[in-house]
């Protein structure tokens, strides 16, 4: 059972999830679940890092390559940050035990999905990482809007995942196996290409890439910002890893895949950036910005193996700051005007938000810049000049709406006093996320070295 030891991180998180279900009731402390979960997640991350890469295990259903390890650590860490933040929620806020448990289960699914080497494992861990998200989206069960968002998410995601499943069935039927290793043959026939296309549709929907993004803005806008902070970031990382590995597995002549990826990328960049511009609710704005960033990720994913690494790195580079911003939104209020005068109230946080936003725009030395750099390098290396041109132009546009946030934070006039939420735990989370945002940019080298990521 030494193989099972390799799954220690997942098991730890799972343990946390199970404990979380009862922690509050037993301890009577409203945030016990989060308080227990956070350290567990950190330990999980450390262990995942220590375990490092490993060949195929469980009859080749899982394999821990460098991407998988990177993703596992990233997911566990982000989960930890999120839990840390949750643990600081005031007693007034809604009960969090279920949320914590679901989030951790979703994390388990994500970590497995990152290391999956078998379509069946992929499919089921994908579902495991997605289904909790429905609940988190509609976590305010008294709030009709939240539930509406959840329903939209649920129905669309189910439709797309069925299409994906349909595709998977053909992929299996054609290759006669569900192991990634045998999928090379699928790309040959028309039916195979349809299968691949369907699989991509499913993954696009998970990454909320256009034109399968429609659920995203509504679901986010209805959901509590805290949930959005988690749902919009962590599952995405896993999804990207899965996408990259599947693309690698399918890459026969690659023609179909590349075209589909690029088409999705182009649409996402345009739709996301353009539609984000007029938004006034941070959740909705970040939803569209998420669509846009998925566009960049798809662009990288279309650019060979180097692109794959870049895509995963970029997914993390996107996840870290946007989780921070959503957490801030959950604390301060999600309307742009709610952030007004933050610089006066909490200068440190305000400046942290500057770091996050600049990173999302792609200004050095933040991680976002490094992500864009590697991504564009890979893309240009594959001769995708024109779409890169679109990408950079769109990143300028994106600066336009990120600055709306910045402007409100620093120069907005606040009418009321603003919510008086001051939780040290939240501050710790912000600090951690800020540090990561900067460190991954400036000290990228040792990190890449450690995980053995090659561009």
């Amino acid at each position, binding site marked *: 059972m030494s193989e099972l030891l390799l799954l220690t991180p997942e098991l730890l998180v799972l343990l946390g999830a199970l404990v979380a279900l009862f922690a509050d009731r037993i301890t009577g402390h409203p945030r016990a679940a989060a308080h227990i979960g956070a350290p567990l997640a950190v330990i999980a991350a450390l262990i995942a890092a220590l375990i490092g890469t490993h060949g195929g295990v469980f009859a080749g259903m899982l394999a821990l390559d460098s991407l998988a390890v990177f993703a596992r650590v990233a997911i566990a860490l982000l989960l930890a940050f999120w839990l840390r933040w949750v643990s600081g929620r005031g007693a007034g806020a809604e009960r969090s035990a279920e949320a914590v448990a679901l989030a951790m289960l979703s994390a388990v699914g994500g970590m497995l999905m990152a290391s999956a080497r078998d379509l069946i494992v992929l499919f089921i861990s994908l579902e495991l990482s997605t289904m909790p998200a429905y609940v988190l989206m509609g976590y305010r069960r008294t709030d*009709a809007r939240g539930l509406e968002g*959840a329903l939209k998410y649920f129905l669309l995601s189910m439709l797309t995942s*069925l299409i994906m499943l349909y595709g998977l069935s053909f992929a299996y039927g054609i290759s*006669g196996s569900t192991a990634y290793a045998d999928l090379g043959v699928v790309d040959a026939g028309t039916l195979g290409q349809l299968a691949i296309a369907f699989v991509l549709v499913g993954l696009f929907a998970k990454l909320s890439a256009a034109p399968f993004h429609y659920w995203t*803005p509504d679901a986010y806008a209805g959901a509590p910002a805290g949930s959005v902070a988690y749902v919009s970031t962590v599952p995405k990382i896993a999804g990207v890893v899965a996408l990259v590995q599947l693309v690698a597995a399918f890459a026969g002549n690659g023609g179909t895949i590349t075209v589909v990826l690029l088409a999705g990328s182009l649409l996402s960049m345009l739709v996301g950036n353009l539609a984000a511009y007029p938004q006034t609710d941070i959740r909705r704005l970040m939803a569209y910005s998420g669509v846009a960033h998925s566009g960049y990720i798809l662009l990288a994913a279309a650019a060979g193996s180097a692109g794959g690494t870049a895509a995963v790195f970029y997914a993390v580079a996107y996840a870290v700051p946007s989780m921070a911003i959503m957490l801030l939104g959950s604390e301060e209020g999600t309307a742009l005007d709610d952030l007004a005068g933050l610089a006066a109230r909490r200068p440190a946080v305000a400046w942290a938000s500057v770091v996050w936003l600049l990173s999302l725009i792609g200004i050095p030395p933040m991680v976002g810049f490094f992500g864009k750099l590697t991504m564009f390098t890979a893309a240009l290396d594959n001769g995708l000049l024109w779409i890169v041109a679109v990408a950079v132009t769109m990143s300028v546009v994106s600066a336009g709406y990120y600055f709306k946030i910045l402007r409100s934070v620093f120069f907005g006039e606040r009418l009321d006093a603003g919510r008086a939420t001051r939780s040290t735990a939240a501050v710790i989370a912000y600090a951690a996320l800020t540090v990561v945002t900067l460190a991954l940019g400036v000290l990228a080298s040792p990190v890449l070295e450690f995980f053995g990521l090659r561009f």
Partner: protein
Amino acid sequence: MTVGLPHVLTLAALLFGIGLYGALSRKNAVHVMMSLELMANAVNLNLVGFSRFVTPEAMTGQFFAVFSMIVSAAEIGLGLALVIAIYRRKRSVELDAVQELKG
């Protein structure tokens, strides 16, 4: 007359299509979910068919089908709970009734 894999796949495709039509056209949330179930069912049929013809020994498709069933069962359970929750607030499960979030 021989009946083989193509027949199974065709049948599955037809069922999938009908389910899709339902998923797109129905106004009642529960009804939509039923249609989705129909699609899931079709996919399972696909898998079992492949399993029978392509990997009769390994039965991979059958396992796949099992897991897919579990998953869709879970999904439907969750979905129905959601519908009920919505019904509690809105006294309706009509999709056109849930249209507040847009833009």
